[in-house]
């Protein structure tokens, strides 16, 4: 079966919609990995926490979606900072390797997720419930619906990404963060306080993951596993970017989202591939990228490729 132009465009709209949120989630993962050298699997739980903050505030306090952005940023950042001081800092002080930090963050993720499960189970609320938000189709361009949620989520994430980029590249603190990422010992020797940098990094990464979660919950439903479902996607985005590059992570998120929506639709139409295999795509990306080309997109030297192409190789 052929795909009509309308379906193609609407799948591209979905690509943008989820891709921008994946980028927000994955940027925090890349930041903590690049600056603090912590492969933080518990990052997925900040998404869940944001989702639940947004869900409770919308359903039980009657707030609008734009009003929950600030609270979820604050809660997510606070949880991230707390997990750093409770777990990662003592472990780093004892000289734990990155793999051990990963195992510890896995344990932390389990604790967070099951605390949410327990609380949601006691009151028997918030297990697979949709937030009470009506999605309106604002525009209808040639049969492609564009909802007001998308019109809010997309600019928010683009502004957040742009602000983060300017913050890291232009400000003094951002320069210090890049210095710590490059060489922690040298950064300390030149008078940078690593604790301050760690604090800022964690507030930003936990906060934006949480904001992304508070939008993400509108498209799915409130469940303690929403972060877990997003985890492999954001790892895939980060791996595609080569784990340490911010523009690469954004590009990776768009690629993951594109292959999940548009490519998956096309495969479903032409080969009858079940849509339930959708989670397979980020995992296939992770395994392929890390096994064949571990440096990802950032490892490709574009200039050399261009000259090779120009030479006709």
């Amino acid at each position, binding site marked *: 079966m052929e795909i009509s132009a309308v379906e193609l465009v609407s799948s591209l709209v979905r690509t943008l919609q989820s891709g921008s949120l994946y980028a927000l989630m994955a940027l925090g993962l890349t930041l903590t990995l690049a600056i603090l050298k912590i492969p933080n699997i518990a990052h997925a739980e900040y998404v869940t926490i944001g989702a639940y903050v947004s869900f409770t505030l919308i359903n039980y306090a009657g707030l609008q979606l734009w009003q929950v952005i600030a609270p979820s940023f604050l809660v997510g950042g606070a949880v991230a900072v707390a997990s750093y001081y409770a777990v990662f800092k003592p*472990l780093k002080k004892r000289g734990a390797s990155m793999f051990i930090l990963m*195992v510890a963050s896995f*344990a932390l993720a*389990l*604790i967070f997720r*099951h605390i949410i499960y327990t609380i949601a189970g006691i009151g028997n609320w918030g297990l697979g419930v949709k937030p009470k938000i009506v999605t309106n189709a604002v525009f209808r361009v040639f049969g492609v619906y564009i909802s007001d949620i998308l019109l809010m989520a997309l600019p928010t994430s683009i502004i957040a990404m742009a602000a983060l980029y300017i913050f890291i590249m232009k400000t003094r603190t951002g320069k210090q963060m890049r210095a710590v990422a490059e060489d922690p010992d040298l950064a300390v020797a030149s008078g940078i306080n690593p604790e301050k940098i760690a604090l800022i990094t964690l507030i930003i990464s936990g906060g934006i993951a949480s904001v992304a979660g508070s939008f993400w919950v509108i498209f799915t439903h409130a469940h303690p596993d929403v972060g877990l479902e997003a985890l492999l996607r954001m790892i895939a985005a980060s791996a595609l970017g080569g784990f340490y590059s911010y523009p690469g992570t954004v590009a990776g998120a768009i690629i993951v989202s594109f292959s999940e929506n548009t490519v998956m639709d096309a495969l479903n139409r032409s080969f009858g591939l079940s849509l339930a*295999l959708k989670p397979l795509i980020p995992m296939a990306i*992770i395994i392929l990228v*890390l096994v064949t080309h571990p440096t990802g997109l950032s490892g490709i030297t574009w200039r050399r490729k261009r000259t090779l192409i120009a030479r006709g190789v």
Partner: protein
Amino acid sequence: MVLDQIVSIVISTGNFYAIWLILTLSLNYEYGYNGILNFGKVLFFGVGAFAAGYVVANLANFVAGVAVDMCSAQAVQLRLETARASPVFAIGGFLLAIAAGSILAGIVGLLLTSSTMRIKEGFILGIVLLAAGETSRIVVRNYEPIACGYHGLVGIPNPFLFVGDAQTSTYYLSILIWAVAAINFIIMFKVSRSPYGRMLKAIRENELAAESFGKNINKVRRQVLFIGSMMSGMAGVLYAYYIGFVAADDFTSLKTFDIWVAMMLGGVGNHVGAASGAFLVTVIDRATRTLRGWLATLNIPIEMLYVRWIIVGVLMLIVLMYRPNGLIPEGPIRTPAYRIFGTANLRWSRWRKS
């Protein structure tokens, strides 16, 4: 009545302990002895379990000479009937499943992990294997012919069903599971004390030094991975036979984490420690499950299945922070040379201090 309950609790705890013991020993063999960061253990465990289900279901069809869909209720009935009627099918199927499951898991482990072994950064390898484990779970869940997809393959017959009573056949199966676990433990214990075990530790400590002594590191790694994955596959077969069905959603990465907790808690690079760690994890698992029933009768809405993971996670963090070598840390290997020179060295240093 109470005695029956106690006996059944003891037997189920014992069987789960035996299965966990095999898994923990295999991880300890890979990580504790050779430093291989295998964060996808559940994949090999699952391969064994699915292979067991697949072999038994198809063998029943073959023996009975009919071709029913292996997921249907009719096929379940057929399997149980055939196992009750013919001891050859029951025992033979079990042996075939053990062989197929462990060898298949070994091959999968060898192929997958040796292709990812060239990733030098530990956490990247961990993420790759984690993703591979989840991938296999999703494939099995959505691809019907392996293990009936979402619903799982029900009715794997107990290999001793022909003795008649269900209770007695469970006892026989428990003895069998225990025997397999004991054989695994003895072999691992012997290997860890042999020159081969010391070579594994040497490679773990310093690859370059071991290579300069003429050890082929990649070959040894492949051997270790094959044996370790085989053991996990064997544990998977026993698990499938004991609980009687296989479902894809049983094999999440939480199982991997459980095995890691058992090993880290007990002692890295020390089989006695790993065995005690596995015991603690099994006891936590069984105790929370028993407690869950009581809480449900008392109408307390705390779900112990979730609390269990909080306990395990906190335990893992405590171990990583305060006892990074586990409860029973790895000691020196007591070779004859150590007995002579090790103690002499000690005496000499004491003498020099005073």
